[in-house]
């Protein structure tokens, strides 16, 4: 053995254990990674040194040292063998040269200067190779990290549509893992991506493969491709896994990357699922609200007007609509009415309520005023099978009232609070029968009461008496009775406003737990205190006019004609007219756009026409108005939004907003200019 290198022994020493690439073309593709990996995996005592230098160094050494006359040579870098040839074991070297940590030993007649020169050259080459490898490693890692981060940000940003998210994920995974085919196994299908051949291979390989959701990776392999099935640990939707295929073997670093990506994919899919769920819930919720509003629209929009009495009716549903209801019919100067509460709230209660109201309307027309027991009997017959079947019941107070005589007939089926405010005391009207839906046949009897001037019938709902304060204390039946006891002869709207205000104050900071309803009837004309001339009337009696309009831009066009009819009741100047029209119009358009936001609804306007001022109360059931969201415009500075409120403030004398339970209440007042005669 002279100058001919012993290839087999060299290879044995210099090669990393795993695999020497046989196919030159494949090697070209993976060379950088091979080097990087070998450099990274290098351990003290390892035979593998910087790969870039090994072959070249061996070649250089061999040619240079052979040319110098060496029989054998050995090169050590940091005490580790880089390469050798010839017989280096039988005798000590005859020459050596050091350069930093590089040691070059030779056997045979080698010129020392020449050896030094070769050593310097070799040292530089190795130094450069180390720097080169460092750079490559850093670059590859940085790029990978950047790509991963980019992928993450993209996935997060688009995590609304699941299909879209999944498609992107599959692409990112393919890119980051250098896979030739990737598929997402979910919902019984695979979303395949990649070149035809590896994709076909992967499809075939995953078919019939079992994997445990959230479990360990499954390896797939044959002579052409390597594959993994990576199960995802998601919390929503069908169990899913990502499968990859490539010719290159999957290594530890790939598994680490997949661990990272798998976590992201699972969480992005979860986010998308939750979003889908939220969207569908919102859709159902919207339908519920619309159906509830329709049911609510069955309630009379204004109280009955009858000579010699006064009635106020009002309900505030706890959800978009509830089970509280009232209804009335005026038949031959007799007022028939019913006030009640269907157990529960929301849409189911509202639907039952519509049926009860329909039954009442039919029954009122069939019986004389003194036969309230017959009305209850009929309601019982008609509603019991229905109510008992669905397991609901309804409290109800049915009454008839003859304003001319003050005779009141009542039948109370489980409804409370129900009471009569007399001049000197409050008389409770306890139920004589359980609520409708409890018994198949009516029991008990009605009662007849002679009302005197100023006497009040009050029928509330338990949503008022049971409203809790933040400490959990109820408004209470006793307080309710106490508050109404001093209201004999007072205007019904004053009583109604007062009770609702007190209950709202009591429950401030607590959401209304149930619908709140109040029906008030006063017998006899109101004794209005005489006001000195020139002082504004308090405008707290019943409103002079009402308008209900659909909450649409088209609906807002009803305002002008309605004001036209108002101006017949109260003459006001044309500029005042147009100021009011624009102010009400702007407010209603704002309610349509910002309170209802495209959801169907109604806007109720009440008007009080005083001698020196006009007041409007505008109510809607849309979302709460939050002033902070309005950008106040600067006069003359172009801005597309926000002029509505700005204009209203300029047009009216006072504007006030109040959020009541489930209701927005706006109050506008316009002072009337003294008219010239």
């Amino acid at each position: 053995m002279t100058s001919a290198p012993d290839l087999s022994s060299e290879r044995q020493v210099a090669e990393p254990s795993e695999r020497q690439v046989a196919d030159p073309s494949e090697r070209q593709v993976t060379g950088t990674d091979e080097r990087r990996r070998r450099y990274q995996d290098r351990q003290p005592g390892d035979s593998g040194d910087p790969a870039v230098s090994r072959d070249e160094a061996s070649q250089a050494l061999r040619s240079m040292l052979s040319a110098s006359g060496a029989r054998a040579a050995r090169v050590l870098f940091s005490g580790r063998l880089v390469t050798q040839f010839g017989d280096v074991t039988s005798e000590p070297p005859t020459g050596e040269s050091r350069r930093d940590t590089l040691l070059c030993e030779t056997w045979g007649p080698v010129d020392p200067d020449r050896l030094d020169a070769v050593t310097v050259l070799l040292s530089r080459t190795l130094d450069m190779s180390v720097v080169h490898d460092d750079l490559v490693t850093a670059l590859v890692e940085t790029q990978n990290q950047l790509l991963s981060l980019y992928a993450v940000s993209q996935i997060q940003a688009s995590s609304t549509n699941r299909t879209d998210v999944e498609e992107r994920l599959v692409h990112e995974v393919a890119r980051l893992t250098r896979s030739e085919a990737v598929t997402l196994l979910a919902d019984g299908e695979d979303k395949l991506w990649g070149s035809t051949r590896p994709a076909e291979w992967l499809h075939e390989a995953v078919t019939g493969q079992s994997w445990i959701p959230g479990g360990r990776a499954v390896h797939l392999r044959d002579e052409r491709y390597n594959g993994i099935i990576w199960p995802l640990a998601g919390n929503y939707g069908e169990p899913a896994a990502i499968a990859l295929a490539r010719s290159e073997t999957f290594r530890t670093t790939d598994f680490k990357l997949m661990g990272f990506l798998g976590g992201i994919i699972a969480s992005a899919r979860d986010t998308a699922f939750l979003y889908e769920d939220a969207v569908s819930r919102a859709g159902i919720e919207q339908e519920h609200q619309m159906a509830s509003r329709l049911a609510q629209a069955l309630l009379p929009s204004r109280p009955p007007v009858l000579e010699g009495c006064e009635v106020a009716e009002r309900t505030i549903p706890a959800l978009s609509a509830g089970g509280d209801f009232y209804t009335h019919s005026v038949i031959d100067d007799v007022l028939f009415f019913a006030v009640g509460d269907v157990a529960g709230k929301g849409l189911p209660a509202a639907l039952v309520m519509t049926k009860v109201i329909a039954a009442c309307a039919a029954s009122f027309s069939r019986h004389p005023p003194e036969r309230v027991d017959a009305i209850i009997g009929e309601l019982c017959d008609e509603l019991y099978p229905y109510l008992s079947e669905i397991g609901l019941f309804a409290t109800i107070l049915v009454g008839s009232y003859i304003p001319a005589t003050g005779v009141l007939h009542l039948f109370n089926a489980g409804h409370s609070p129900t009471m009569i405010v007399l001049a000197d005391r409050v008389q409770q009207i306890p139920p004589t029968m359980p609520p409708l839906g409890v018994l198949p046949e009516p029991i008990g009897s009605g009662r007849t009461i002679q009302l005197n001037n100023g006497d009040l019938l009050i029928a509330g709902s338990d949503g008022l008496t049971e409203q809790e304060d933040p400490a959990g204390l109820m408004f209470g039946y006793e307080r309710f009775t106490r508050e109404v006891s001093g209201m004999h002869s007072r205007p019904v709207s004053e009583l109604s406003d007062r009770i609702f205000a007190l209950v709202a104050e009591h429950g401030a900071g607590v959401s209304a737990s149930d619908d709140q309803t109040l029906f008030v009837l006063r017998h006899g004309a109101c004794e209005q205190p005489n006001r000195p001339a020139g002082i504004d009337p308090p405008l707290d009696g019943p409103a002079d006019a009402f308008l209900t309009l659909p909450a649409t831009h088209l609906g807002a066009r009803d305002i002008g004609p309605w004001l036209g009819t108002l101006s017949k009741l109260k003459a006001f100047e044309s500029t005042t007219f147009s100021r009011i029209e624009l102010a009400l119009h702007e407010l209603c358009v704002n309610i349509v756009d910002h309170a209802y936001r495209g959801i169907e609804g109604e806007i109720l306007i009440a008007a009080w026409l005083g001698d020196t001022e006009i007041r409007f109360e505008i109510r809607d059931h849309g979302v709460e108005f939050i002033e902070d969201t309005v950008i106040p415009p600067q006069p003359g500075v172009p801005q597309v939004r926000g002029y509505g409120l700005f204009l209203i403030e300029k047009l009216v004398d006072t504007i006030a907003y109040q959020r009541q339970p489930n209701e927005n209440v706006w109050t506008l007042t316009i002072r009337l200019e003294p008219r010239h005669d």
Partner: protein
Amino acid sequence: MTDATVGNNLSSEVTGDKAVIRVGVRLDALEAHELRTMIDVLLMNGTLHLMVDLSRTEFIDSAGLASLIRAMTVLNQRDGHIELIRPRSEDAWRVFRLTKFDEVFTIHDAAPVPKPGPRPVPGPRSGADEPAS
């Protein structure tokens, strides 16, 4: 020159990069949407000089005003401009005064309403809708 009419209330007339829009009696939230669409189409087709004739308009709300402001903003960006013909109705004009946009827009007075004929009784109010002679 092309003419277009949207509904009964809004019409436009285009000559090169100039356009005139005639607004009807009412320019409210509902109509503002139509106006905005019309303006968008005109701007898309290269209109740079827009004249909006509000002379017969009797009711303008903030949405109507906003559609004009929007057109002004876009046209200013393109070195175009918008001019208005003042509504004859003081009620409609009030919106411009209250928001101070009377000082921002270039505004021309409307042609005077044609005088009633020799008969002592004034004509019907719809006379204002007829073009000035």
